Structures are given as C-alpha cells and as structure tokens.
C-alpha cells in the first residue's frame, strides 16, 4: 500500500515538472499572438539591415558563383547583382527570396580577368547593396584528383613530415637527465600554449566575421569546451581507474591529438586562403611552416622519451600521423568546402585541445619531477617553448 502511494506521489511530481513547460508555451503563444503591440508601447523597432552574408565567391570558366545567405529575421530578396560596380544579368540557383538563414547561389555569366581584384555586390529589394571585395580572381579549384593530391602533398609537407622529423629527437631525449627532460616537457607545454592562444584568437576573429545569428563568442566556447572535455575523457580512459597522471606514450599520444587538432585548423586555413586567392603558396612559406612544425614533433617526443620500455617505430609513425595528417584533412575541407562557422568552431576546438594537453603535461611534470613546476628548468622550458614558436613563426610570416 505504502509503496503504491509513494509511486503515485512520484508520478504526480513528474507530471508537475511539465507544468512550467505548459505555462511557458501558453505565455509564448499569447505574446506571439499579440503581434508587435508590445513593441509599439515602447517605441519602434529599427528597420532590418537588409544586408546579405556573402559566404563564398567562386570563379569558374566564364562565370562567377556567389553564395549568399540571409542572416536576418525578415525575408530578403535578391533583386540586383553588380560585378565591379556594373549591373549584370544573373540567374539564381535556389530561391530568390530567402528566409532566415536560407541560402542561394547566384550565377553570373562573366568574363572575369584572372588575378585582378574584383568586387561583387548583391542588392536586396530595398536597395541595400552588400559588397564583397575579392583580392584576386582565381579559378576556384574544382574537386578534381589533381587539386585533391595537391592539398594532400601540402598537408603532408607542412604537417606529417616535420613532425616525423621532430620525433627523431627521441633517442637523444631518452639519454638526458630528468631535469632536462622536464625542461623539454615544459617546452612542449609552451609550444601548445602558444598554439592554443593563437587558435583562440583566430577563432574569435572568425566568429566576429560571421553574421550575428550564427556567430557569437559562445560558438568559440562550444569548440573549446567540446575538445577540452573530449580530451579529458580520452586521458581518463588512458590513465584507467587510478586516475594517475599520464606519462610516456599515453601522454605523447594525447599531445599528438592536441597538435592534430591544431594542424587541422592550420590545414583549413591554408586550404581556404588558397582557394580564395588570399594566399600564394611558395617554397619559402612551406619551408617556414615545416621548420615551425618540427618543434611540434619535439613536443611529442619529450613525453615519449619517458617510456621505459622504449617506443616502437610503427608507434612513432602512428604518432606522426595522428598529429600531422589532420593538416591534409583540413586542407581538403578548407579548399573545397570552406564554411566560416565550422572554421570558428574548429579553431576553438584546436585551442581547447591544446589547453587540455598543457594541463596534462603540467600534471605530469609536477608529479614526476621532485622539483615540480617551480624549477628553473620547467619555467625556462615553458618560456623557451613560446619563444621558439614565435621565432619559427616569423619564418612563416
């Protein structure tokens, strides 16, 4: 009897939990049904900006394709298109009137001049023109085998190869004293902090360029928290039940994953910038990236050096691939299907992953080395890591 009554009580409390939802629906419904009368009591809403978000301008043989999105609440109609301040006939692949966050592609037959700056304008029915300046008209690479291979080679050169080279420091690292290993571990922490800050900054910049409805710093936080917590989860799995600080190959793997996140963002940036004609790829630039990224290999090697049993070559290769191969994937995505919202999210994720690994490394150093994080080796190593990244970064600038 009593058990039954208790169960009934529990049910009624569960039902009660629905009451706020029902009341909220009624309140929202009532407000919506009242139209704009509440706003009228206070004043008047300003008119909508009627500006489009020009997502992508692609140059193909004899035509320009302009991807536009409506970033605002009210409908937006594509009424007129200009190229270099001249009205041009056009077709719309998709609806001409766009609802909130809906997109269409405008197709303009146009003999664009290769390598010249060019601007495209999309005018709404209220006459507001949104202009996108393109620094140089460059034929947008199609998703053909050549371009696919090209991005893969770039990704390999700036991602996988330098990291693999950096890992070759492993035998040397194995023979050095504990305090120097601590210094190199701290160096790894410094490298990752640098990458994290940079990715975070990039993420906020990208987010700011995204139209209001889609952007916002919260988008970056989602990326940061998402990757940070995922990495925390993975490290928890690695360390098992005891919850001991990770070390050796497990920590090296975690570092590799963190760097992999970063390199995905780097590949994305290279691919997108190249596809948009904002980046000229040359040997100097590639070399700069390679030198810059060798230090990432060193960062992975430092924790691996602590593995007593030694690290097999296939395992090392795996680490290089985990850290470097995302550059290739990023370059593909950036080159063929860039999306600024995703890009902001990915850069946020890169930052979160980097910071999580910094925390892991710090935990490891503080447990492993009697002198802990306060030793001159740890502090010096950390600062040196930042300095090394900054200086090698100059090479790629």
């Amino acid at each position, binding site marked *: 009897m009593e058990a039954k009554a208790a169960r009934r009580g529990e049910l009624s409390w569960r039902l009660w939990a629905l009451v706020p939802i029902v009341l909220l629906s009624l309140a929202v419904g009532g407000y919506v049904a009242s139209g704009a009368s509440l706003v009228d009591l206070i004043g008047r809403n300003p008119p909508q900006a009627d500006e489009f978000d*020009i997502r*992508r301008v692609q140059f193909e*043989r*004899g*035509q320009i394709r302009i991807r536009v999105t409506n970033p605002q609440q009210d409908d937006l109609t*594509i*009424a*007129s298109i200009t190229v270099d*301040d*001249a*009205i*041009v*006939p056009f077709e719309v692949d998709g609806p001409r009137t766009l609802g909130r966050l809906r997109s269409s592609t405008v197709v*303009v*037959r*146009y*003999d664009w001049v*290769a390598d010249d700056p060019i601007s495209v304008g999309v*005018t*709404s*029915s*209220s*006459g*507001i*023109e949104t202009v*996108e300046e393109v620094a140089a008209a460059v*034929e947008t690479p199609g998703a053909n085998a*050549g*371009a696919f291979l*090209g*991005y893969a*080679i*770039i990704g390999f050169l700036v991602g996988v190869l330098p990291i693999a080279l950096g890992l070759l420091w492993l035998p040397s690292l194995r023979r050095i004293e504990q305090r120097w290993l601590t210094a190199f571990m701290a160096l790894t922490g410094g490298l990752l902090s640098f990458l994290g800050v*940079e990715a975070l900054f*990039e993420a906020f*910049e*990208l987010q700011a*360029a995204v139209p209001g409805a889609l952007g916002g710093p919260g988008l970056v936080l989602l990326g940061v928290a998402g990757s940070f917590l995922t990495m925390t989860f993975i490290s928890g799995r690695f360390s098992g039940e005891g919850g001991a600080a990770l070390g050796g190959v497990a920590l090296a793997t975690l570092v590799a994953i963190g760097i992999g996140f970063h390199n995905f963002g780097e590949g994305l*940036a*290279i691919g*997108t*910038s*190249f596809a*948009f004609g*904002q*980046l*000229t*790829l*040359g*040997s*100097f*630039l*590639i070399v*700069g990236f390679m030198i810059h990224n060798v230090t990432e290999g060193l960062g992975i090697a430092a924790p691996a050096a602590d593995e007593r049993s030694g690290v097999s070559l296939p395992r090392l290769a795996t680490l290089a691939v985990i850290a470097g191969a995302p550059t290739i994937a990023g370059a593909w995505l950036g080159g063929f299907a*860039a*999306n*600024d919202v995703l*890009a902001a999210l990915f850069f946020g994720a890169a930052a979160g992953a980097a910071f999580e690994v910094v925390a892991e490394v710090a935990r490891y150093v503080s447990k492993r080395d009697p002198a802990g994080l306060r030793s001159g080796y740890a502090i010096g190593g950390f600062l040196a890591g930042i300095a090394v990244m900054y200086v090698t970064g100059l090479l*790629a*600038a």
Partner: protein
Amino acid sequence: MPKFTRRRLLAGAAPLVAAPVLGKMTLGSDAGAANRTLQGHVHDHRSAGHAAMIGQNVPAVGGPRDLDALLYPPPPLPYEPGRIREYEVRARDREIEVAPGVFFPAWTYNGTVPGPVLRATEGDILRVNFTNAGSHPHTIHFHGIHPTNKDGVFEIVNSGEEFTYEFEARPAGFHPYHCHSTPLKKHIHKGLYGALIIDPKEPRPPAQELVMVMNGYDTDGDGANNFYTVNGRSFYYARYPITVRRSELVRVYVANLTEFDLINSFHLHADFFHYQPNGTGDYREYTDSVMQCQGQRGVIEIEFANTGLFMFHAHQSEFTELGWMGFFNVVD
C-alpha cells in the same frame, strides 16, 4: 567569407618566392590555368557585353509605354499674350521600383521621379498650384527669371499645405525645377525634381520632341548612387528603345539632376548632333557628347542619317553599367 588574419600576413611573404616544383604539384602549372581561362574566353560568349543588354534580357522595370508621359512633352503652343498656363503639382511619398525588384522610398512630384514635364511659351503666365501631400516640408524652386517670393526658397510649404507659384515664363529655354527645402541633398536625391520647357515666342521648327532627365538613386544611403537612369528607371530605354524617324528632326531636352556625382553626360553613338546649352542663345556645339553639372541642361537637335539602333549613354562607364544606357531605334 572566411578571412584568416594570420594567413593573410603569411601571404605577404609570397612575392619573395618562386616555387616551380610546388606550383606544379599544387596547381597543375600556372600556364595550364591561363590556357584554361583563355579557352573560356574564346568559347564562351554567353556573357558577351552589350548584346546581353538589349531587349528581353535587360533588367528594366515595367512595360513599353510606362514612361511616355515623361519622355514626350506636352505640345508647344504658339505665343498668345496674357495666356495663363496652369499646372497642378502634388508632392507625395511613394515607393517606386527603380530596377527590377529594387524599391526606393521616393519623394515625388505627382507620383513619378522625375516629376511631370511642365511647358509654357515665353510670356505666358505660369501658374503652378502646389500641394504638399508628403510627410516633410517641400517647395518648388524653378530655374528662370521670377520674383524672389516665388522662388521656392523661403516659402516653405509644410505637410498638408498649399502654395501657388505664379510668374511670367521666361527666359525661353529648357530649365529644371526642384525642391529647395533643407537638407537640400536629401530632398533632391529622394526625387523632387523635373523639367520645364519654355518655348520661344518665335517657335522652334517642328520636331519629334523627347525629354530626358538624368538622375541616380542612392538606394542604400551611403552617399553614392547605386542606379543611374534617364526618366527614372535603369536600363529602361535599352529594354524599350525609343523609335524615331530617319531624316526627320529629333529634339531632345536633356537635363542633369543627378545628386552626389559632380557631373553626368550624354553620348550618342554613330552620329553627331547640335547642342544648345540651356536651350537659350545662338551658340550651338556640334558634337556627340555633352557634359552637364548637376542642374545644367540643354537642347539637342539631330536628323539621323541612317536607320538602325543608335546607342546613347553617359560617357562615364560606371553610370552606363549602372543603368544609364539606352537606344534610339531609327526607322524609315
């Protein structure tokens, strides 16, 4: 569109570099890309310039006779002492379609931009009964010779009020009229302007007469025009060429009421014409292009020697490609 700030910095290093090998790997060689582009130019005539900008393909608003009232002036009347020419002009706010699907919240005289073509013979009493049905104070300021209290500067006509401008029409010529309320730039570019023809007592030779008021619309309020037109609609006379007869006198009254830009111009293809500045005096220029500052105007006279499509447009390419372009269709 994505913009990667650090990468843009990185891009700055690029000119230092020549990387033939990499270039080949990533691009399939620049020369190949250039060839592809060139082939595109050779084989692809879909975007071939002006051919795409006549007739059906032209993005212009409305039907073939929509602007007749602005293009063809009322007929001239022979001089008659003491005659009164009376016009009703009503200022009102009206959203007009200046290009297909592009709507501009205009201030108009009688519902159109430009306003109605007014006409009188020199010596007539011109009486314009002005009603302001718009939402802002307006006036009509006529160019010409008249008492200063009929000048449309101090006699501000508030919303809902009326005013009568009455004066002797002179001097003979072609003159603009426009609102002179402040802020002046706003009141003019919103559309409050039009054309006034004052015929000389000694009439001009009979001709097929046309009026062209050049203007622009700054539809996004950035102080620069987005569309240029004659008689209010971009590319209208490219969509609907103006038919005139060969070897018959054609007289075009041309005025420039374009706001924001220093000048506008009229250029005729494949023939020359005589141009009389302001429609006054004996001076004639024999040319195919005239340039007018805002408020300048003149009278063009031409007998086309050939039949065919004669393009006319502003000789500022930018204006041309933003709507100020059309054709005469000269027929036998």
